[in-house]
């Protein structure tokens, strides 16, 4: 069988879906992770449960494409519709296994900035945390999705909107953040980064067709590379079929 071609965002969605394990509580977030959750539910982890900070809990995929978590299809047939604290309470208890986030900037220790960006040397004001700081502070694992370039992957974020490993291992405990929490993976347009014992990110896999040298030259710090560097698994035909059924016009998964 001829392997289908796929876009980078389709690859990222499939990679994100594989970060969810069966039976887990997932803080879904916005954009690509909304699709990743549905792909995961349909193919890998039928018993995963999705939490949305607006107060929605779902154990079935939404019956239509979501542009925001508050879209009417996300409420129809939900397991629960309540208030924000009804889901944030589960997050703060430590019951949420994995949370997904986007970011304007991420640094070598997985700290995220969505408050202040820079463009052409000027500071630009970004929308802010939303629930990102809560998810990064409180969920057991945090998975970040973003485009891979030197403006996005920086040595040190200018503003810690959402804490990763701070300045290294032990930092989160020093700050008082929950013991079982912290960054787990950064899924970029070029590869997947994971975190060592010292709290610093390393390149764990490169996407098909991407050179390690390109990854390194597009990262704002000297990125360590895993001894057992892998190639990110291509999306399977089943994953691609699910993604394209959910997002037939490639609203989220074009590029």
């Amino acid at each position, binding site marked *: 069988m001829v392997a289908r071609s796929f876009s980078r965002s389709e690859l990222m969605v499939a990679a994100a879906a594989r970060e969810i394990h069966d039976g887990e509580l997932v803080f879904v977030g*916005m954009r690509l992770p909304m699709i990743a959750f549905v792909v995961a539910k349909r193919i890998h982890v039928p018993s995963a449960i999705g939490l*949305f*900070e*607006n*107060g*929605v809990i779902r154990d079935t995929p939404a019956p239509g494409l979501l*542009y*925001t*978590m*508050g*879209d*009417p299809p*996300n*409420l*129809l*047939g939900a397991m629960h*519709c*309540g*208030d*924000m*604290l009804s889901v*944030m309470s589960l*997050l*703060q208890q430590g019951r949420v296994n994995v949370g997904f986030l986007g970011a304007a900037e991420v640094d070598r220790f997985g700290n995220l900035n969505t*408050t202040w960006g820079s463009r052409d040397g*000027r*500071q*630009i*004001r*970004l*929308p*802010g*945390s*939303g*629930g*990102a*700081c*809560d998810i990064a*502070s*409180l969920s057991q694992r945090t998975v970040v999705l973003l485009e891979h370039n030197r403006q996005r992957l920086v040595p040190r974020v200018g*503003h*810690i*909107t*959402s*804490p990763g490993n*701070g300045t290294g291992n032990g*930092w*989160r405990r020093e*700050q*008082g*953040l*929950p013991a079982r929490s912290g960054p787990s993976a950064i899924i970029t347009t070029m590869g997947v980064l994971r975190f060592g014992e010292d709290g610093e990110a390393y390149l764990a896999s490169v996407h098909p067709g991407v050179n390690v040298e390109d990854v390194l030259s597009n990262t704002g710090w000297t990125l360590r590379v895993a001894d057992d560097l892998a190639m990110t698994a291509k999306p399977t035909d089943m994953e691609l079929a699910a993604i394209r059924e959910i997002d037939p016009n490639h609203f989220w998964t074009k590029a």
Partner: protein
Amino acid sequence: MMERTASKLVSMHQAVAEHVPSGSMVLMGAQLEQMIPFAAGHEIIRQGRRDLTLVGPISDILFDQMIGAGCVSRVMAAWVGNASAGMGYCFRRAVEKSIPCAIETVDHTNLTIALALHAAAMGIPFMPTYSTLGSDLLKHNGNLREFSSPVSEERLVAVRALRPDVAILQVQRADASGNAHLWGNLGVAIDGARASRKVIVVAEEIVAHEVIASDPNRTLIPGFLVAAVVQEPWGAHPSPVQGYYGRDHDFFHEYHDQTRDPDGFERWIKHWVADVPSRAVYLRQLGDSRMGGLRVRQHALSVPVDFGY
């Protein structure tokens, strides 16, 4: 039969004129991307309010519009932008260049906004959380203060109670006394109603008291908290109201494309707000075909519950 509270039904113009003076702290957008009270925000803009403090978790493009119109001097929110397109240009211009005026930003998270309102709803000075420890939000937002737990060996963040002058809450239906049914995702609406000094309920439908009383679990805003009730069908457009109409995604993208510079925003606000005397005129401008595309295509009624005994 006992006399029930007198009707609080007023026009949007009256509700804003009476209950949202310049300088107020106003909670809007409590249900995140659903049920954002755009009609109320537009009336506030038309009445030329100034020096408002806006409070809300994400607000979508409503806060951006009110900032661009010069109504706002402070924003206490978790996120200000455009949920479809990302950034809000008016917010950026105000923070970066003081256009049309400087605004103070007090950066919260969704959870800290929820806890700030919960504390006020509980009548206590703060609520504790682990969230924001180690973040720069904790350094810059004076309403977040680190403290040592008095009952355990832990550090926590105290989130100062936030008591808005007025909460403007969009709901599906209410009676004339302000007893309101809402359903779907609730965000911070319940705590927001209790935390605020006044509540304006904006309802898609005004129904008989008996309809509301038939399902007290769904009466999430008790009428005695409510100062004014406004009937405003499609009052949340372009945001959705579950069971009434969907989200007009294109509208958010059009707003983004048309408000990149101050002149573009001026044209947008003139076309959709300043030159539009009422919501009815706004809806005529929106047009039947666009509204038709947003109407509920397939109803999904819940099964009634039995309150009998």
